[in-house]
């Protein structure tokens, strides 16, 4: 590794980046740090503010780099921190002779520069590693009066937010009543414009999360056939009513606050003693990546607990600006790993963070989950809805079945035990080969109208369906 602190100074876009990088140089932020034995490459996974760790790679020969974080600073603080560790504590890197796929992927797409990297004091002007280190070592001390003022301001802000959100929900209620009065046929046709308008009001009144949900409603409706849209509108608007009522009854409830206004930070979740923690073996079932109308991309990675006797799921949820381009996730479908997950407090805990990754797990099949006694594949969804009726997507494990087509070539999942009875419509189109494969078990998301397939177990192994 040919890294020195002067090079890092020169690479840093500004002093603030160096300061931020200094805070990330703690080994605990990096569940994985590796260096290639022969190639001039170092890489690592840095636990950032997202639920997935960021993947950071650096070529020490030409100072090329790659990070999956959405930062618009180049290089970002994660790159700087990785190189900083490389320069000051090279022993922290495990020596390996193989590069992981995501590093390979980056290497195969990057173009090497024609000239060696330019470094020198001129480019390091105004930026100092020493200063950044001092900042980290000596955080400013706040006096008692200032702390009280800050807390008072925080309380005031929270009170203001609560009043604003309450007003937002009043407006939402009125808007819903108006849609019923004007007719859902007209609402479905004009949902894009109408939802955009009320979503903007909700944003103004600090109900940001709710605004995002309302903004996505037209896309949900349009994904369905015309005759299904009124029912979907009733379902979605009814859920908004329930959510608004629940929030009014318990405005400090963490789950409801998260769904209506803003989410907790990663640090808050990790520090929350009420947050459920589960250490287990997890399999990545699949990903759901959606570009939202508010310019963000939501990236959901669904996990299955391989040690639980009943189906237990987790979702790692990240948002990043669509303008940041395509991001590679930290996990690939089918990956298995041992980890300690911390769940966001909720009635049905699903959203989680990877607190600690404890190594990979060998491939294999899923545990055998006992089917519902009454043979209802959606029994788990009913229980899920009892706990939190305002939620839409419910993860389930379907029993043995197969995919069949209706007359319009729409795909349906059909239970193997009852080929003429229970069948559930599948969202989107399916891989034609899937029509000839018997599925031993299928993981999917049920949104009340459609199944979104994530993965299946079959006689020919695991099938990625997301």
């Amino acid at each position: 590794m040919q890294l020195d602190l002067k090079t890092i100074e020169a690479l840093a876009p500004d002093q603030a980046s160096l300061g931020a990088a200094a805070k990330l140089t703690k080994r605990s932020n990096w569940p994985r740090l590796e260096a290639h034995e022969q190639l001039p490459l170092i890489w690592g996974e840095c636990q950032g503010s997202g639920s997935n760790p960021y993947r950071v790679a650096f070529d020490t020969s030409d100072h090329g780099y790659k990070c999956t974080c959405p930062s618009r600073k180049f290089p970002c603080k994660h790159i700087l921190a990785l190189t900083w560790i490389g320069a000051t504590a090279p022993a922290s890197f495990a020596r390996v002779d193989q590069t992981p796929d995501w590093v390979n992927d980056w290497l195969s797409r990057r173009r090497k520069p024609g000239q060696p990297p330019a470094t020198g004091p001129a480019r390091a002007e105004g930026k100092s590693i020493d200063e950044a280190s001092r900042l980290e070592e000596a955080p400013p001390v706040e006096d008692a009066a200032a702390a009280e003022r800050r807390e008072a301001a925080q309380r005031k802000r929270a009170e203001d937010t609560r009043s604003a959100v309450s007003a937002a929900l009043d407006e939402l209620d009125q808007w819903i009543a108006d849609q019923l009065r004007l007719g859902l046929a007209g609402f479905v046709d004009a949902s894009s414009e109408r939802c955009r308008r009320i979503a903007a009001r909700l944003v103004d009144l600090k109900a940001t999360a709710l605004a995002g949900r309302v903004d996505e409603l037209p896309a949900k409706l349009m994904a369905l056939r015309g005759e299904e849209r009124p029912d979907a509108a009733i379902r979605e608007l009814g859920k908004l009513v329930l959510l608004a009522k629940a929030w009014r009854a318990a405005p400090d409830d963490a789950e409801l606050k998260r769904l209506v206004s803003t989410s907790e930070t990663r640090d808050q979740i990790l520090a929350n003693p009420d947050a459920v923690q589960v250490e287990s073996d997890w399999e990545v079932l699949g990903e759901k990546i959606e570009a939202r109308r508010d310019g963000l991309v939501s990236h959901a990675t669904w996990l299955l607990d391989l040690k639980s006797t009943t189906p237990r799921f987790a979702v790692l949820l990240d948002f990043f600006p669509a303008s940041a381009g395509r991001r590679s996730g930290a996990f690939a479908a089918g990956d298995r790993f041992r980890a300690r997950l911390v769940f966001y407090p909720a009635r049905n805990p699903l959203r989680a963070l990877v607190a600690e990754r404890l190594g990979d797990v060998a491939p294999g099949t899923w545990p055998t989950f006992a089917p519902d006694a009454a043979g209802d594949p959606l029994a788990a969804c009913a229980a899920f809805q009892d706990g939190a009726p305002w939620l839409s997507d419910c993860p389930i494990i379907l029993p043995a079945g197969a995919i069949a087509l209706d007359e319009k070539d729409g795909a349906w999942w059909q239970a193997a035990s009852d080929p003429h009875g229970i069948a559930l419509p599948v969202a989107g189109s399916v891989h034609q080969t899937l029509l000839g494969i018997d599925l031993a078990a299928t993981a999917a998301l049920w949104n009340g109208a459609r199944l979104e397939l994530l993965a299946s177990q079959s006689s020919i192994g695991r099938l990625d369906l997301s």
Partner: protein
Amino acid sequence: MNELDQAGLARLRDGWISGGAMFEFAPVEWKEVATASSPDEQERRLLAIAAQALDVALRPAAPKTLKRRPPLPVLALPMLPERLRPLLRAALKYAADARLKTRVAALVASRGFVLHPMDWMPSVSDQESPDIYAPWVDWQAGADSQKQSRREDLTAETWDDFYPAARRSALIDLRRSAPALARTLIETKGASEPAEVRLALVELMRFGLGADDVPFLKSLSADRSGKVREMAGRLLARLGERGNQADGGSEDSTAELAAFIEEGKSGFIRRRATYAPIKPKSQAQQARRADLFASCYFGDLVVRFGRTEPDFIGAWQFGVDDGADLFLVRMVAVSGSDEAVASLADLLAAAGGRLAILGLQLTARLDSGRKRVLVRQILNDAQNLAALILVEGAEAGWLEWSDLAKGKTLPALRSAVSGDNDVTRRNAEQYLEAVGFLASPVSAEKLIGEVVAAGLPPASPSLSLLRLNAALAGNPNQMINPEKIA
């Protein structure tokens, strides 16, 4: 939810679709829960109850006519191990077209595995994939896998029990082991098939083609389909039979083509004939010449000059006109006799350089040994390595490290991957893909080391097929018919 609730929900739904207050029409129990001081609040409460009812109490009604496909047939080879699937997917992703993807499948089949159907499936019209995939081709075409599993030897009685891909595969085997039996089947069963199927059946006559096939092929001159007549004419031409006036071998056309070729003499002591192309005077003449080379039969042409096919090939002046050289080689590939094809291949391989690359046009008709000679020569010359991608019907995994190391290949490769010339580098990457199919696992492993040491990124996608090849090292080549692979 009882029937009253369902009827009430339907009323609410219909009312809300057109708009208006629906509280009065709600089921009694729902009204009790939803009663509130304001009409708007009552409607919202009803909406929440209706939403829950739709979510929990109602299930989508499954259509009565859901169609299920028959189970995907289980193939005779095991599936590629899960740990190798990422490598396979990388190789498939890098393969630019269906032909190259099929080549990946062929390499894997040669090592005793089939691909996972979610990674790759042969298409309905696929005739290039290894035989092992015939049941999947037929499944894609809608075949009932139960029927396939009952199949026995292909005979006139069992003809209808076979779906097209399986039948094609069985007929090829039969043409090799008992050509007369296969011909009789094609003759008797093909007559009642549509033109497209007849053409595909007659095309199979090229396997094990022999003099005994002449009467049947001649009988096809009366076939209703022009394409079938043309195919039969080409096959007859390969057997040394002269073309007829109606198809391809028109005397006038052959004479016109002969006029584009100049006969000369060379040598001082033993004067011998030479044949060289005459430079066309216009674009139109050039196009006409190309058409004539494509439509006339080689046997007819050489007869015009009073020569045998090998003699004519020996006397052709290669290098005078590159276009004419290519047309001639293609002509021999289509309608030349086996002897002509072999002598031309030997001549081109011996000449090496650009001419050896022309020889790739013949590979579909060359035996395994000649193909190898040609590939080795091209490797040795290292003039246009990317052209190896054109080798048809080659076997997978035979190229040894000595074949690669002794010629100019490795220096050329090293220079291409370490240089800045994008075109050369791209050609080198295509070459790596081609060799990824041809190389033995040991050669693949060594070649990866060589090019990475020369500066190619270790993760370059162009190495993906080589990596897959090397990773399949534990599985020696299986006997897969090379004619059916590429």
